[in-house]
């Protein structure tokens, strides 16, 4: 307790108000049919009648006020009766009790409306009229849409408004009909058949705005179910509110919860097409740009290829190669020449070193015998009185051997 903020604690009244608000703003609970068995039925002197509706699992308190009873076509209620009660569900705050404020009651026993409905449903289901395999796909963008409804009803206005907004490219063919009353079932069937005879519509919407279960009853009749089943044009049903299910809904190729939803299901939304068109335009522009850039690049490549094949360019290239080659040749020659020069110098130096003149310069002399100019290298070669010539650096000396 210490940890709870006192401001967040609700009073009983606050909780009750909150619950009542929840129930009273719920669309389904504001107009609902509930079936069950009557128990604890008490009618007071005030004329108000209180009872419980129950089935095997649960029970629901009900109050049937005098005014409502007098307005309705309800039979005298007794315990054990099987009924379907129509009204709104709300909270009786004083007792903290959730109850059904009854407006009308239908017998749900043998011979009544609901039982016949169940029997018809069972029979048609057994025939396969509700089978998924019978359901045809709806055209994705029908250019002609058939509508079977009352020309005066709000449903038609709603459907046309949706079609105008979503898909004004379409054409509507209205097959006018009564949608409630004893003649309605045959009229609806005929109107649907007529669209098939005319055979231009690509899809048909069978529509009727919300109303009481009796108002919608024509769409539970067998003639209507049969007409939908034999229609060569796919049929979309849009009858009543979200919570209303009629036999027409089960036979139709597509069940929409309301006429408005049926119209929306029949056609695509051009807003999406507008978007697609924009995308296409953008893609076109991007593609042509990419294409042009590619072409431009290719042009550049081709131009370069072409240039390479130009004789002038080729000549220049050859000239250049020639120049390059000459330069190379020259360099090689230069190299070879310098190598040779180098070697020559080496030989010259060695030659120089071996020259006898050089020896003479150091004080040695070459001695020749005059008689035969032979070089004297041994005493054995000369005899006294032989005439010799001595070569020194700066000339010759004539001499005679004495001994």
């Amino acid at each position: 307790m210490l940890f709870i903020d006192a401001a967040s604690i609700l009073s009983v009244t606050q909780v009750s108000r909150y619950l009542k608000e929840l129930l009273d703003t719920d669309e389904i609970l504001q107009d609902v049919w509930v079936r069950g068995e009557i128990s604890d039925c008490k009618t007071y002197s005030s004329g108000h009648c209180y009872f419980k509706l129950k089935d095997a699992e649960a029970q629901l308190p009900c109050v049937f006020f005098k005014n409502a009873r007098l307005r309705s076509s309800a039979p005298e209620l007794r315990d054990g009766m099987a009924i379907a009660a129509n009204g709104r569900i709300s909270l009786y705050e004083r007792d903290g009790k959730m109850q059904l404020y009854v407006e009308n009651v239908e017998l749900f026993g043998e011979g009544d409306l609901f039982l016949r409905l169940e029997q018809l449903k069972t029979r048609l289901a057994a025939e396969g009229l509700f089978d998924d395999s019978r359901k045809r796909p709806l055209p994705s963008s029908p250019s002609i849409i058939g509508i079977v409804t009352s020309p005066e009803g709000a449903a038609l206005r709603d459907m046309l408004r949706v079609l105008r907004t979503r898909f004004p490219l379409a054409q509507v063919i209205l097959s006018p009909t009564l949608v409630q009353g004893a003649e309605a079932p045959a009229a609806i069937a005929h109107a649907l058949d007529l669209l098939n005879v005319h055979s231009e519509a690509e899809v048909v919407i069978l529509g009727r705005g919300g109303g009481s279960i009796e108002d919608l009853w024509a769409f539970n009749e067998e003639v209507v179910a049969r007409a939908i089943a034999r229609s060569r044009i796919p049929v979309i049903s849009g009858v009543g509110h979200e919570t209303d299910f009629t036999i027409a809904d089960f036979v139709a190729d597509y069940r929409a919860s309301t006429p408005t939803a049926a119209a929306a299901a029949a056609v695509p939304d051009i807003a999406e097409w507008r978007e697609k068109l924009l995308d296409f335009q953008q893609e076109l522009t991007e593609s042509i740009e990419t294409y042009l850039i590619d072409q431009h690049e290719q042009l550049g490549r081709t131009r370069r290829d072409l240039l390479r094949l130009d004789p002038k360019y080729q000549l220049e290239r050859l000239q250049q190669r020639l120049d390059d080659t000459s330069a190379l040749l020259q360099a090689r020659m230069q190299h070879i020449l310098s190598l040779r020069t180098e070697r020559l110098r080496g030989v010259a130096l060695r030659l120089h070193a071996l020259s006898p003149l050089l020896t003479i310069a150091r004080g040695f002399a070459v001695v020749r015998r005059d008689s035969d100019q032979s070089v004297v290298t041994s005493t054995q070669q000369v005899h006294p009185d032989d005439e010799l010539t001595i070569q020194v650096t700066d000339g010759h000396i004539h001499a005679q051997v004495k001994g």
Partner: protein
Amino acid sequence: MEALTFEEAFEQLEAAVEALQDGQMPLEHALHYYEEGMKLARHCNDLLEKAELRVQQLRVTNEGMPVLESFE
């Protein structure tokens, strides 16, 4: 092109976009696809802008045949 319905024009536009995205074609063709595509897109847009839901109703003749007549 003026005579094309929205669906027809839309289909041709789709084809032009695809062809151009492929890109393997002479310049002349590419430009043609581009120009045609843009024209088709404008035509589609025009049709959408001008579109007005046409409502008619079926009436049964004395011979029992359904015929169309204007509604409202």
